[in-house]
């Protein structure tokens, strides 16, 4: 009896670390340990850095009840900003700053539209997605469909030296964990996701809390775009596209409930991204065709959604 309640209480944790452990063991066997070779571990870190940074930022959005689908497009636009600024100035920090400012500006636009004009957040993010994609396509069309980085050597180390990726992930994760679990912002954020009325009566300023969530999300997307650019080497039409879906798959694999609220955990982003990347990487090493990988991920996605939905129902043995 005790163990059943334990499972019920910790279902999110079980999904999170259970799937991570499962993936690790499974691929250790399937790939005969290859997946954990030093070389592959390095390439894993490189593969997950973009998704990791964005997902950590997105947890703040999901937790307070916003589903954002613009992250991929905004990241794409940011890679272009970095390229243009870097080509003009030759200064990496300045160009990254420009990217972060751009991303934050776009996210704050979304915030403004939802907070003050009362539009649904998903519609606002859809609009921003089109704006960002449109800008990328338009600027590319002015440049024959492709922009090359003149100073690629300046950011190339971000790809070749995995230490940068590891440090970036660690720093973002630590800041994310602190903000989400140990500050007012994170706690208000979760309360708003469940019951904005009560949160407001208890002192949370809804607009202000959301403002900071959007700022955090913007910063993460801006920073991640640097790694995205370093890995791709140039700005193409589809750069960053689909990232928003990968984020959702990853955080759900990590046991996150996309409705947000008190059960949201920052660990869902961290563990989820690792699981997600191991999954793709492991299947690739095991020789599975790329198209099937998407299929496998889709199936896992549905299974996990099914499990979390059932959980919501069982809790609802309520209105007494």
């Amino acid at each position, binding site marked *: 009896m005790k163990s059943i309640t334990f499972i019920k209480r910790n279902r999110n944790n079980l999904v999170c670390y259970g799937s991570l452990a499962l993936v690790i063991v499974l691929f250790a066997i399937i790939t005969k340990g290859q997946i954990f070779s030093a070389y592959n571990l390095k390439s894993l870190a490189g593969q997950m850095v973009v998704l990791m940074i964005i997902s950590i930022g997105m947890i703040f959005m999901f937790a307070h009840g916003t589903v954002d689908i613009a992250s991929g497009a905004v990241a794409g636009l940011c890679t272009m900003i970095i390229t243009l600024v870097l080509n003009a100035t030759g200064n990496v920090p300045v160009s990254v700053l420009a990217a972060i400012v751009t991303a934050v500006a776009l996210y704050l636009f979304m915030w403004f539209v939802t907070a003050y004009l009362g539009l649904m957040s998903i519609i606002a993010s859809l609009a921003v997605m089109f704006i960002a994609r449109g800008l990328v396509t338009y600027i590319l069309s002015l440049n024959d469909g492709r922009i090359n980085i003149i100073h690629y050597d300046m950011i190339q180390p971000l790809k070749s030296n995995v230490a940068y990726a590891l440090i970036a992930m660690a720093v973002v994760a630590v800041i994310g964990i602190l903000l989400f679990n140990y500050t007012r912002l994170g*706690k208000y954020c979760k309360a708003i996701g469940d019951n904005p009325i009560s949160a407001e009566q208890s002192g949370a300023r809804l607009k202000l809390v959301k403002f900071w969530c959007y700022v955090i999300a913007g910063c993460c997307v801006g920073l991640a775009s640097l790694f995205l650019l370093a890995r791709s080497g140039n700005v193409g039409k589809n750069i960053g596209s689909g990232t928003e879906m990968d984020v959702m798959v990853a955080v759900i694999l990590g046991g996150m409930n996309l409705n947000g609220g008190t059960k949201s955990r920052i660990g869902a982003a961290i563990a989820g991204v690792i699981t997600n990347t191991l999954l793709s990487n492991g299947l690739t090493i095991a020789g599975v065709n790329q198209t099937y990988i998407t299929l496998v991920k889709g199936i896992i996605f549905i299974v996990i959604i099914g499990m979390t939905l059932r959980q919501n129902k069982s809790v609802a043995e309520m209105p007494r």
Partner: protein
Amino acid sequence: MDNKKNEVFFETKKLTKKFGEVVAVNQVDMVIRTGEIRGLIGENGSGKSTISSMISAIHTVTDGEMLLYGTPYKPKDPGDARAHGITMIVQEMGTIDGLTIAENIFVGDEKRFAHHGIINRDEMNREAEKVLKNIGVTDVDVRKPASSYSLETRKLVEVAKSLYYDPILFIVDETTTALSQNGRKIIYRIIHELRDKGKAVLFISHDLEELINNCDVLTVLRDGKMVDTIEKADFDENRIKHSMVGREIKGDYYRSDFDGTHGEKVMLHAEHISNEVLHDVSITLHEGEILGLAGLSGCGMHQLGRALFGLDKVKEGRITAAGEAGSEVSISSVQDALNCRIGYISKDRDKEALVLPASIKENLLLPNLRKMGALISPRREKEYAQKQIDFLAIKCSSMNQAVGELSGGNKQKVSFGKWIGNNSKIIIMDSPTRGVDIGVKTTMYQLIARMKKEGYSILIISEEMPELIGMCDKILVMKDGKVTNAFNRDETLSEQQIIEYMI
């Protein structure tokens, strides 16, 4: 069969309910007879709601059985229970926000208005109006969504809905605390009518006076077990209390002093405020004063509380509070109110006061986060939560349990605990003891009295006359959005005197 009285028609045999390892109801044998009003009492979390929810098929039965007219009764869902003649008014919200009042009344039973698969709305609305009129409610637009009505009106809608199905067993779980005096009259009238028609009523309440006045038999629960059955002849307040708690309740219930004096400093002041509900209301709350607001439904006292906390806007007039440095700060938003250290306990605990999926700890801490510093230490959080849980005797399996899993009274304790010791100096309490058992009510009253001595200013908005008379330095009576009279603390003050000015 219906008109026979005093015949056993419903029985439970070793009825048991477990939630995980928590045994909420433990082997209860209870019989209910036709033509009786059966009171069900017990401390918060003793299993009253759980038993009634099993009878009306909201909860599944873990063990044991129920018999209806001697045959096993195993309802599949609330609709099935209704078909057997058993309906229930739940303790928490039983209406659905998005639906209109009419849709709420006929939810699950829309088929009766269907003609060739299309629901005739006019017919449904007309029928809904009739159903409401039957219980004496006429000022409700059945086309409006339920969310646009107050807790009280929604409760009355539920009552009307339950009666529509002509129940033989009508269960009323803690409904009276959500109602004002006139709403209560309606319920009392209804249950007596049902009894006289040979139907049975299962009536749950923490108000001993109400129980003694209305019930024929009382069943006492303690920790999920049935511990006593008391016949009308043996009704006695002390006897009931004793069997409920298992020990003597010592000390004063309300404040024992009749000293209505308080500090001179004005802490909260409303000058001639008006909005849709309020008309030219002025009130002043001083340091160390307990001020009470009394009135019937629609009198505007709950809205006044909301306005004072900055939740409802005022069109005319001004609300000011004493700021930090002796300055006067005008209140026009919740943030203003919180900055002036005003706290607010909402009456609607499920929708406004609590974050139901969040834990007890998280809920208790929410209004406290402002003063916990930049980085919040988990140890301090735990200490604070444990202090409140112990003080208010919140019955829970751990401080990490979701508030939504608690019994009604225990939820109320969390809602109360949120604002106690959170450094608010002015606390607006809307029905602070709603659904709380006598033992903990005593604790709350003693705490409020102590807070007065320590210089806190408290505004109690309540439908409970004895509570206001017992606690307040001054009681303001409201009617139709205006303050119509004021009574100072006085030993001789009676309920009747106040009620005269309410109607």
